[in-house]
């Protein structure tokens, strides 16, 4: 049952027929893991906490730097030097004491990611490098874990939701990571500060819809967002029979770290 405070706090959800008391209970019983407490993870964490998602995990080994503050809105100036996961925990708990925040002050690697994602209903990729993005895809596909991919650079962002075994995965479209150094980092190319707010909020929307079982997920479509031209491209995509992890003859059957990748947006 809800407390009087909860009925008031979640009243705008509860009066939505697509959510209602049952839906709000699903959110409170639900769990979402956010990997990366940066540009994408910040809005996702804030909205999931506000929505009353019962357990929010957040993984990041970094500390807050002044160059983060232009876009990583969960971190504030007094948090400089603080571990990002602690900074994020404080804001989430301040927004909503109903939320249990679980922190992982580490980078995800092949030898720890399976244990971190285990037990969560949904995963949000808010990382800033290709090695982590491919590892998260592989771990989620092998574990059958639904997740939201997100990426940003310059004025563009992309996102897609993956239901392993049902919808295309990241490797169906992008089979292998680019060679190290091929893609300019956000530190080199820059990134519009508000851009990850849009993409991270879409990722949080997907997590909430998944927990509620409401609506149509961003599966089978790659959403590209061009903030400069203010255009959205939701391109249909299909599963790739030659996908190295979810295709007919997968060559990836165990997790491995993609060597040589580096942070793309947290540097400097």
């Amino acid at each position, binding site marked *: 049952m809800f407390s009087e405070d909860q009925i008031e706090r979640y009243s705008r959800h509860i009066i939505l027929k697509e959510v209602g008391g049952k839906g709000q209970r699903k959110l409170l019983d639900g769990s979402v893991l956010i990997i990366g407490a940066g540009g994408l993870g910040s809005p996702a964490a804030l909205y999931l906490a506000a929505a009353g998602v019962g357990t929010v995990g957040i993984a990041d080994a970094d500390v807050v730097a002044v160059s983060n503050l232009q876009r990583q809105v969960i971190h504030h100036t007094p948090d400089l030097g603080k571990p990002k996961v602690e900074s994020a925990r404080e804001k989430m708990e301040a927004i909503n004491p109903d939320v249990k925040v679980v922190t992982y002050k580490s980078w995800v690697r092949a030898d720890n990611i399976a244990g971190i994602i285990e037990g969560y209903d949904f995963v949000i*990729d808010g990382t800033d490098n290709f090695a982590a993005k491919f590892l998260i895809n592989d771990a989620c596909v092998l574990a059958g874990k639904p997740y939201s991919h997100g*990426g940003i*650079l310059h004025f563009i962002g992309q996102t897609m939701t993956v239901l392993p075994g049902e919808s295309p995965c990241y490797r169906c479209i992008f089979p292998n990571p680019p060679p190290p150094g*091929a*893609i300019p980092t956000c530190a080199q190319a820059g990134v519009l500060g508000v851009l990850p707010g849009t993409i991270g909020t879409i990722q949080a929307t997907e997590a909430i819809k998944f927990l509620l079982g409401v609506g149509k997920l961003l599966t089978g479509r790659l959403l590209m967002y061009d903030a400069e031209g203010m255009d959205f491209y939701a391109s249909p*995509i299909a599963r790739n029979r030659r996908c190295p992890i979810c295709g007919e003859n997968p060559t990836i059957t165990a997790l491995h770290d993609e060597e040589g990748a580096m942070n793309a*947006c947290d540097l400097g």
Partner: protein
Amino acid sequence: MKVTVKLFATFRIGRFGEMTKEYQPGTTVGDVLNELNLPPDEIGATLINHRHVEEDQQLQDGDTLSIFPLVGGG
């Protein structure tokens, strides 16, 4: 045939944002990528009229080809 090519983010630097030009029938997406000297390692999504296509896809008169770099930031 006339094709509109749209480039995004860093691909615009030293090139253009949007351009409509004549191509020979049979021109593929890969041909346009080569012509624009876009590094293969940096190519992310290539869309014709908002649909994801591979590099061997042939262009048709009136198509809009949108070319995005890979985006790995967060």
